[in-house]
């Protein structure tokens, strides 16, 4: 079982090749440059470096969303193009589950957050039961203040062992946590606090084994938000 994993959901561009629970290569760049220019050259680089015959890939894994709409589409179109040409399926990994996978078997709750602007974050709440990543609350856009209140409600229960935040929404959540969060919390360090295609790939291996994949044509990003134009129509009661 061999797969290529891609995450271009945020500022980070990350690609990885995994084979039978081994990470062969990972290339991650967290720098202001358009994914359109970097993503495919990065894939080309790790494929060459590990002497890949692309035809031996069994699937392409993608951080399917949420994230920057444009970033998601660049990753999705890249995955769809590769999968179309190689005739392999696509494994869709929720971006926040992929982030949570960075903290394998961490104690307590894992709360990946992505900056969704206007004091909002895309967040999900996860924890590990043994080796298995369990979703406590599905990924969705929430106000940072509401996320803190939600975690406070778990005080003494699921959150008794504390919460680890990670992701580029950490800076949005931090002032709210400092002010109101009652449960112990921490922020993940640099080696695990951003998207990593290796984590997307590792989770994709689990999904793939469970038969959770789609065709290249079927795959589309999980935006979690409607377009501005649709939102405005709804506000005006036109829908």
């Amino acid at each position, binding site marked *: 079982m061999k797969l290529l994993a891609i995450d271009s959901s945020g500022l980070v561009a990350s690609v990885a090749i995994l084979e039978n629970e081994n990470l062969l290569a990972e290339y991650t760049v967290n720098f202001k440059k358009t994914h*359109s220019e970097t993503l*495919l050259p990065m894939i080309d680089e790790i494929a060459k470096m590990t002497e890949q015959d692309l035809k031996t890939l069994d699937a392409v894994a993608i951080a399917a969303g949420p994230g920057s709409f*444009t970033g998601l589409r660049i990753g999705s*179109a890249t995955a*769809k193009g590769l999968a*179309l040409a190689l005739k392999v399926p696509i494994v869709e990994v929720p971006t926040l589950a992929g982030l949570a996978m960075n903290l394998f078997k961490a104690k307590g709750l894992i709360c990946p957050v992505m900056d969704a602007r206007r004091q909002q974050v895309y967040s999900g709440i996860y924890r590990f039961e043994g080796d298995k990543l369990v979703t406590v609350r599905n990924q969705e856009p929430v106000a940072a203040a509401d996320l803190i209140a939600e975690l406070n409600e778990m005080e003494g229960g699921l959150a008794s062992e504390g919460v680890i935040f990670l992701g580029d929404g950490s800076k949005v959540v931090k002032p709210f946590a400092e002010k109101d969060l009652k449960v112990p919390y921490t922020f993940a360090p640099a080696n695990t606090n951003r998207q990593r295609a290796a984590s997307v790939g590792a989770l994709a291996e689990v999904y793939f084994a469970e038969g959770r994949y789609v065709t290249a044509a079927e795959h589309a990003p999980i935006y979690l938000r409607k377009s501005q134009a649709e939102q405005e129509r709804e506000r005006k009661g036109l829908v």
Partner: protein
Amino acid sequence: MNGHTDILAIETSCDETAAAVVRDGHEVLSNIIFSQIDMHTIYGGVVPELASRAHIEKINPVIEEALRTAGMTLQDVDAVAVTYGPGLVGALLVGVAEAKAVAFAAGKPLIGVNHIEGHISANYIEHPELKPPYLGLVVSGGHTHLVIAEDWNKFRILGRTVDDAAGEAFDKVARAVGLGYPGGPKMDKAAKGGDPNAIHFTKAKVNGSEYDFSFSGLKSACLNYINTERMAGREINIPDFAASFENSVVGVLVEHTIRAAKEHGMKDIALAGGVAANSELRRQLAEACEANGFHFYVPSPIFCTDNAAMIGAAAYHEFKCGTRSGWNLNAVPDLKLGERAS
């Protein structure tokens, strides 16, 4: 692969998701277009985010259909071509990322194509005898260019719009008079049977290049006319209004084109772009060419509106000239005619 050069072309610059397989730059083996127009109509124009989302959903089926219709697999094509500008950046990015990945995984060369040059190249499909140098008039919702095709991949701009594109003026005026979106085809239809001289809209003068166009003045004149008539409680004669507006736009396009052809010693004139589907523009330019002894070329309407076959036609000549794009090819939303990605 078979003595021919077969190119898979992809186009997603605006609101059509399109793919085609074109042989030797003119023989269209398939031409698949998924139009999103119904989706955008309720918004009165193209919504970029919705266009980008629809491209992602349709692009694989459209490419697969193009290959199937051509009776080919990816392995059979010689290159993959894609529009990388100008256009809506989010929409372009879908096609560019997809095309790069397809070409990379299939081990095929990639050719980035300029959308406007694609429009001009649409003429090669039905007129393989057309060869540079010739004069091109590209008129669409986003572009109005008068250009000399000096060589297969070398273009010189003589004039362009300094404000609205001609098609944009059609859309805006059509909306104001209540014909709705898209304005071009609706105005064209409404103008049938109207008197083109019923209303006199003054032609705007443009400072700068003698071949430049300006349509915002005409647009304002039309909006003023609509306002004045409505204030006075007079009903607007839509056919007369549409025919008069159309006549003004077409008049200035034809006049500049013929003058440019004479002054630059061009024998062939090629019309292109979405507005080239306008029946009045086709008729008047054809007549003016005939009267002045020029050869007139124009694609069938299906190749005038956005499509991927025209990208395949342009890509063929780029391919022959040695153009190969890198895996870092990016969308360039304001790509100029004749410009090449570095």
